């Protein structure tokens, strides 16, 4: 219905909201597709209701454990795991950001030659498509169990994340400043240092803080495949059905993530 026809209908008191998707064919097609998909998907999901009913008691136990988390009886394990997670988080973020800067520069189309651009984009694509945990499996095989494999994993994942966002930021930068610095006869390094870096720095710091936060969250799971950190402790406590300890660990993770988020929003406000 055209705009004019809509207005006239509205004056007669017949008004309807504009739909989200304009073309009716696409709208109905999507709706029918969604219904068909839901039917196919729901019929293919097999649920063992007997097992679910059996587990209901455990769910209650678990909720009870959250009311009474047990920080004490596995205190040493929790502290060791936590310390490992935190150190892994910090070192991997620092290493990852340092390595991401050259990759990010190379992946920005406006400042890098085509061959380097493709290589850097390929690095980013590989690092971004695979989940941290898949990369962790490979690195655990290569570097052995322990936090070193975890650190390399997180650093590798950080490269993809930071380099992509940094490259996008560089591609959007204000080119006039680069021209101005170049006009003074600056070398490549000087251009980077005085024209590009000041423009991307606030965002880079903000993103690094954000990545620190992500890396901590990820470091709590890569322990499941043997890459060190609190994840291993959590996994053990869950498989031993010590729900009160697991609840304690989860509460600690939530608290640390909250703290990270709060401080990173502070830092971001301060740099921008």
């Amino acid at each position, binding site marked *: 219905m055209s705009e004019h026809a809509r207005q006239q209908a509205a004056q007669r008191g017949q008004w309807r*909201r*504009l739909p*989200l998707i304009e073309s009716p064919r696409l709208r109905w097609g999507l709706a029918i597709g969604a219904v068909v*998909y*839901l039917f196919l*998907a*729901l019929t*293919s*999901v*097999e*649920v*063992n209701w007997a*097992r*679910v009913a*059996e*587990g*209901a008691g*455990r*769910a209650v136990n*678990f909720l009870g454990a959250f009311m009474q988390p047990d920080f004490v009886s596995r205190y040493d394990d929790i502290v060791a795991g936590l*310390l*490992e997670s*935190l*150190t*892994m988080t*910090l*070192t991997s973020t*620092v290493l990852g950001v340092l390595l991401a800067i050259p990759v990010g520069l190379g992946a920005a189309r406006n400042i890098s030659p085509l061959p380097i651009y493709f290589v850097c984009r390929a690095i980013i694509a590989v690092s971004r*498509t*695979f*989940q941290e*945990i*898949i990369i962790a*499996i*490979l690195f655990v*095989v*290569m*570097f*052995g*169990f*322990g*936090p*070193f494999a975890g650190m390399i994993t997180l650093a590798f994942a950080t490269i993809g994340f930071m380099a992509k966002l940094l490259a996008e930021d560089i591609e959007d930068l204000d080119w006039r400043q680069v021209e101005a610095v170049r006009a003074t006869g600056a070398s490549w390094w000087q251009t980077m240092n005085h024209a590009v870096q000041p423009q991307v720095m606030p965002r880079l710091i903000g993103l690094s803080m954000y990545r620190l936060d992500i890396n901590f*969250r*990820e470091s709590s*799971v890569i322990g*499941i*495949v043997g890459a*060190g950190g609190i*994840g291993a402790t*959590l*996994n053990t406590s*869950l498989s031993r*059905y010590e729900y009160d300890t697991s609840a304690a660990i*989860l509460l600690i*993770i*939530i608290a640390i*993530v*909250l703290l990270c*988020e709060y401080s990173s929003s502070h830092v971001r406000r301060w740099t921008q």
Partner: protein
Amino acid sequence: MPVSTTPQGQPVWRRRTTRAQWLQYLAWLAGVSLFLLCWKLISDNTMWVFVEDAGRQGADLISRMTPPKWGYANVLWKPMWDTINIATLGTALGIMMAFPVAFLAARNTTPHPLVRSLALMVIVSSRSINSLIWAMLLVTILGPGVLAGIIAIALRSIGFVGKLLYEAIEEIHPTPVEAISATGASRLQVMNYGVLPQVMPAFAGISVYRWDINIRESTVLGLVGAGGIGLQLNASINSLAWDQVSVIFIMIFATVLVSEWISARVRHAII
């Protein structure tokens, strides 16, 4: 201005005052020491013999992974379908739950500040726990299978969608809301005609974005028994069948690329 003077009385420009300069040096020193301390902790917990061996192990791994055992792909179609179902149904369930939570959490639509902090609490706890951990919990409760995966993805999505959506709600224009309430509309009608149309595009974009992330995450949920292609991955790794693992990796890579392309297209169309 951090200007000091030379003995001759001429002003010299400097970027920082002496105090700020020293503070900056100290901050760098503290940062570097912290990094080195962390590095030492990690290096103490590492068996360096294994690390020195890494190059050979890596080469060995690659030689075992190639050539991929292409015939194995026929076994993978059903797990892949399960994986996509986990991601899609999980996202659908998640956004259904995130939608009301976001309205309760946004400053301008929340019924009461107390409700708001409760909703924010839900969002934060859902966001800080990885879907793999949710899956571990749910597998012990619901038993292994696709259902645990779907609910794990849904629980994780609440926080993400909820946070982005409540931020979108807080950024809406107040004028349409005022106009609708001036007609004497009830609270729900104001939401429906004043707020909802403004956040709908953002909501659709966020949901598709989360679906794309969920496809990635659901590929690994099987490692803890929550169904999907991760189960096959786990089985292949445990039986050291690395040529099967490489087939799985290629399939995951292709699926993720396709989902990323779809999500980029949809978000492009919306914005």
